[in-house]
């Protein structure tokens, strides 16, 4: 009995090391859980980047699932995820709303002209106030909304083919969005 109990400290040490290994391996650091998950997307009113006379509110996001993507021209990762966003816009029916976060509208418009525009709407959030309502702390961030306007999922970091396959697409399918529908889904819904 006493022989066995000598190994207790080693066992405790192993457990602590194991927990530490799992804890660090989770990589939870860069994915701060959103406080908005399963909560309604905040009320807002934002002007359209391409049509400043028109304002979009939360009500415009209701009725079908949507993807809200926070981006800016100063954000290199936004450029690297752009191709995947273009593909999603081309291959699916999903409404993609861009939030142009703390950016200069002229630069943003030029960026969209140069690399293509995957968004159904681009909201002008040059002062980052909508970002704060959404709990954004960097770019890119991508929110999944259901038809009732509740946040289902939030991705911090880029949307790449792997994230689309593993995280986003299954959730959209659950929400009843059909993959690869009409090829032209770029017009305003």
């Amino acid at each position, binding site marked *: 009995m006493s022989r066995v109990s000598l190994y207790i400290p080693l066992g405790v040490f192993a457990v602590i090391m194991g927990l530490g290994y799992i804890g660090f391996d989770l990589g939870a650091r860069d994915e701060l859980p959103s406080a908005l998950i399963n909560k309604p997307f*905040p009320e807002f009113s934002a002007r359209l980047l391409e049509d400043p006379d028109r304002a979009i509110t939360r009500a415009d996001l209701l009725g079908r699932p949507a993807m809200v993507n926070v981006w800016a021209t100063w954000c290199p990762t936004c450029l690297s995820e752009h191709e995947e966003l273009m593909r999603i816009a081309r291959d699916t029916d999903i409404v993609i709303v861009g939030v142009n976060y703390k950016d200069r509208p002229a630069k943003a418009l030029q960026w969209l002209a140069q690399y293509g525009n995957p968004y159904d709407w681009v909201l002008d959030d040059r002062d980052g106030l909508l970002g704060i309502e959404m*709990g954004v702390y960097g770019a890119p961030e991508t929110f999944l909304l259901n038809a009732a306007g509740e946040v289902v999922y939030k991705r911090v970091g880029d949307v790449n083919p792997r994230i689309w396959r593993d995280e986003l697409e299954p959730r959209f399918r659950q929400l009843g969005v059909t993959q690869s529908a009409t090829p032209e889904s770029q017009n305003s819904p």
Partner: protein
Amino acid sequence: MIRYPLRKLSSWLLLALLPATVALGASQIDTFQFADDVEKRRYRALIEEFRCPKCLNTNLAGSDAPIAQDLRKTVHRLVAVEGMSDQEVRDYLQARYGDFVLYDPPFNTRTWYIWLVPIGLGLLALFVLYRLQHSARVEHSGLDDEQQKRLQSIVAAKTDTGN
């Protein structure tokens, strides 16, 4: 001739100003307007209290990250313009950025183990310590019951005669 003492004087001046620059560097140089000192003090205390969402371990007051600047601006607006109480500001930020921004995590289903594991480990340590001491006392005498009894009687006899 005259340059030398001047230089000396200026270096002394610089030295005297050094603490001031350190103080400036430590606190952010935002130019916010407040109605009174109470409001200003509340703002200062609040930005000291919240953790910057982008940083590992820096509060809003100490961070240069853009999001920290924005949140300081927001805290100022909530305090000075919207007239929120401290608790309302806390709730506002927590609703948007979650428990992460609070340095003092609440006790809930996601955080209970952070609070309980150290207490549990402490209790475990006490238990192990108790067991170790207890078994040491019994084992190291190396005597069986009979011998133990004899030892007791010898000690008793000794102390009787000794007195």
